[in-house]
């Protein structure tokens, strides 16, 4: 099967269409959520834990706030944290991977050991410990997630750099007197970027889930509404026992759908750069 | 009819395009037939269709009849279902696959795998009998029986090839197909494997279909040879006759490319062009676009006909008593 160009893959496959739609909708809501929300998300009222009605499409929370508005506004946090943390993770992982793979020797040994350590350690407990020690803000959340998710990218990049390093064009460049920075910039980096990109898209999905989990456990930014904090509030106020499905189902569903969309796009891009992964080829 | 195998008008299609096109041949008991041709000409596909092991997506048609000497009734392979074939496979006809590197289950002992196959086709064999059979088989192919209790990865390439031959013989079939048994082996191993096959044929009365792109290999071990091109048989006949006096330009060119000890040092000119695309075959003779002797007549399909005693060729100009000088690079008539 010949490699189609990525635009075709996005349009022709149902995965591409679905992922693209989800991403587009999420992006739109993240930007314009506060503007299009019918109610201010924090606004409490006396209509506590009411089921969906004409006034409140998804009912109300335990403080009488509109669930639908919260859902819309919460999109921004998930998208922001997801993308920002993934970018940090990508930059860190690539830097470590390239340094480790290209320079070898002790640099490699130390960085590789560091990488393996981060890969083995369970991520959520690590994030919990880091987040609890610091003040609960979005920036902290982004930093914590980004600083704990880079090892996967690092490992992939390192493996790729190791193979690239031995290739003829690198040897030739060095023989011609090219410096390391030049080689990395013009030979190593361009050949690793597709891999980094594919991996980062999947990290976005993981970051979104991580933010939701941390917020759910109470480590999120209390001044911001996110889907995770919605679930946290719902749980803490006994919404499940009260049967308030309108409060409990939408935030989790939103997380699932967004993660699904992003993941599908990530898998699609992985297949594009690695034809071996395609099952019909 | 006393022949062991009779193949009539075998055709294998992939989405309507022929990979194997109207192939017919017979095989006598104990006879060795060589199937020659370049890669992609349909040799392996033919072999797989004899066992009805074609990958899904390929459809086969045509008659295949096997008459094992130990059976009363002939086996109509073409009519057998998958369940019906499971009884036939290995028991009456077996196949030594190309490239023995990964042909055995890596997590099971070799003797266990041979034993499994024996038990599959024979009831009421005792453990001791099976064990004795396995030792016997391994010794026959020139391996020490102790190697049986090893894993595949602990054996060398040549040893693995021999194990595959031993496996192929395990149920005492009357016909063994060997697909490129010497490719990927060094010259010394090649000679040993060929000697082994020859010895097995004489000792056990096995019929052999030997598939190879290497005519030298076929010359040593086979009685008759069939040359395939683009899914069709273009020449067939006794090995000596075909090699001494080929009757098809393709066979001639294949023979020319074999180095001759004591002959001139130059290389024969390569055959220009490449094998045709099965999706878009040339009109008439499949070889004519690359044939230095082709004319207008070659646009009509040449039938495979007897042009010398026991020798058939699919060429309008056969029989050839001598071969004219080759004109430099004629690309031939092609529509």
């Amino acid at each position: 099967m010949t490699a189609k160009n990525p635009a075709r893959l996005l349009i022709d496959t149902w995965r591409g269409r679905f992922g693209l739609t989800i991403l587009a909708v999420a992006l739109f809501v993240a930007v314009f959520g506060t503007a299009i929300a019918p109610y201010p998300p924090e606004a409490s009222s006396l209509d506590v834990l009411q089921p969906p009605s004409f006034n409140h499409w998804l009912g109300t929370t335990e403080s009488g706030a509109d669930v639908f508005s919260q859902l819309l506004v919460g999109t921004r946090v998930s998208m922001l944290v997801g993308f920002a943390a993934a970018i940090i993770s990508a930059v860190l992982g690539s830097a470590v991977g390239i340094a480790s793979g290209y320079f070898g020797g002790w640099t490699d040994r130390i960085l590789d050991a560091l990488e393996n350590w981060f890969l083995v350690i369970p991520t959520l407990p690590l994030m919990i410990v880091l987040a609890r020690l610091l003040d609960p803000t979005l920036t902290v959340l982004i930093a914590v997630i980004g600083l704990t998710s880079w090892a996967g990218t690092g490992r992939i990049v390192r493996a790729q750099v190791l193979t690239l390093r031995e290739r003829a064009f690198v040897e030739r460049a060095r023989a011609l007197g090219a410096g390391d920075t030049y080689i990395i910039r013009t030979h190593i980096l361009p050949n690793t970027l597709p891999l980094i990109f594919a991996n980062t898209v999947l990290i976005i999905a993981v970051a979104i889930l991580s933010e939701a989990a941390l917020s759910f456990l109470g480590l999120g930014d209390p001044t911001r509404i996110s889907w995770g904090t919605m679930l946290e509030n719902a749980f803490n106020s006994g919404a499940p026992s009260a049967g308030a499905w309108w409060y409990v189902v939408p935030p989790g569903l939103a997380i699932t759908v967004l993660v699904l969309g992003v993941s599908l796009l990530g898998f699609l891009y992985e297949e594009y750069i690695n034809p071996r992964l395609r099952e019909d080829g | 009819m006393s022949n062991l195998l009779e193949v009539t008008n075998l055709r294998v299609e992939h989405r309507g395009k022929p990979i194997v096109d109207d192939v017919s041949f017979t095989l006598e008991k104990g006879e060795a037939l060589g199937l020659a041709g370049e890669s992609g000409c349909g040799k392996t596909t033919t072999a797989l269709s004899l066992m009805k092991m074609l990958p899904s997506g390929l459809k086969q048609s045509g008659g295949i009849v096997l008459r094992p000497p130990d059976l009363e009734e002939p086996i109509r392979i073409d009519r057998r279902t998958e369940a019906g074939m499971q009884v036939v496979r290995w028991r009456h006809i077996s196949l030594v696959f190309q490239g023995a590197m990964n042909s055995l289950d890596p997590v099971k002992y070799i003797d266990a795998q041979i034993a499994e196959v024996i038990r599959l086709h024979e009831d009421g064999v005792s453990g001791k009998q099976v064990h004795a059979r396995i030792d016997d088989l391994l010794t026959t192919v020139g391996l020490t029986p102790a190697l049986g209790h090893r894993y595949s990865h602990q054996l060398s390439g040549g040893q693995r090839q021999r194990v595959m031959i031993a496996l192929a013989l395990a149920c005492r079939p009357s016909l063994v197909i060997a697909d490129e048994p010497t490719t990927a082996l060094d010259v010394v191993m090649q000679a040993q494997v060929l000697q082994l096959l020859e010895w097995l044929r004489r000792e056990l009365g096995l019929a052999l279909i030997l598939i190879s792109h290497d005519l030298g290999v076929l010359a040593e071990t086979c009685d008759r040879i069939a040359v395939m091109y683009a899914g069709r048989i273009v020449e067939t006949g006794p090995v000596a006759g075909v090699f001494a006096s080929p009757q098809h330009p393709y066979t001639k060119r294949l023979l020319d490319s074999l180095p001759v000890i004591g002959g001139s040092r130059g290389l024969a000119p390569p055959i220009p062009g490449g094998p045709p695309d099965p999706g878009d075959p040339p009109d008439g003779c499949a070889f004519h676009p690359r044939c230095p002797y082709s004319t207008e007549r070659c646009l009509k399909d040449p039938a495979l006909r007897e042009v010398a005693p026991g020798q058939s060729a699919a060429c309008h100009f056969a029989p050839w008593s001598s071969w004219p000088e080759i004109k430099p690079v004629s690309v031939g008539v092609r529509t």
Partner: protein
Amino acid sequence: MSGRWLAGKVAAAILTLVFVVIFNFFLFRVMGDPTTQLARLPRATPEEITKLQAQYGLDKPLVGQFTDNVADTAKLDLGISQRSRRPVWDEIKDALPWTLLLVGTGTLIATLLGSWMGVIAATRRGQKSDDALLGFSLFTYASPEYWIGIILILVFAVWVPIFPSGLQMTPGVDFSSFLAEAADVAKHLVLPATAMTLMLLGQYFLIMRSSMVDVLTEDFITVKRATGMRWDRVVRRHAVPNALLPLVTLSAIQFGAVVGGAITIETIFSWPGLGELTFQAINDKDYPVLQGTFLIFSFGVILANLAADILYFYLDPRVQTK
């Protein structure tokens, strides 16, 4: 050289664990020590702070603190819980069996069910059943496990009240026999274990499926078929055993996720395990407990990885005879 290989793996595991201890120490001493956290409590007076500093050994130089910490950890002295005033190790000891019960049940069912589904999907690649299973696993992979837990409570504990919505036992009941008590626990285990299983199911399914798909393309599978073996036997006796090998190594990647799931699922169901302990410690800012659970979680994952390595070593003859 199996002995050497094994020793190497164990040494690596120990080294990793040592770095966890080091990390733990520096994190809590450097990023914030208990007294400054305590100082945020409105009631702490300067005298109390000085006393706490002495108690925690914070007046010693850093190196001294570190060696003390390592020595204490080795003795399983992980400090005192700020909330309960009990030794952290005791809290962990009480909670650990419950987590093992939950995680063990969930992992076992997920592995068995997921592998079985994976084999089916691989042998029916491209067909509707394969697509359905793929879709299902994709959904469980993308959904937060605690959300699934909440939905399970909603459906099976509130709307159709078959199962309890939390805790590990019905409170305040005197059980006539061990069997009755076990049955009660089992009833409480169903929903949380289901949530855990669903979380892991998708991963194990995908791993087994891709492993099977790879194995089915191998030459020896074609050879087995050529010997006249029935397809179900080829799959069962030759494809599946070979597909299990990558499953062991690849599922080792899941162990971290298992821990994460344990934390959130136990929280939802008030299941008295390490996860619930962690959740309470988060709320109470109980740093000794947080440190302790982080240590135990890391140790658990390291141990599980080691076990997976050993298991793989015993299953794959190619590794053994190198």
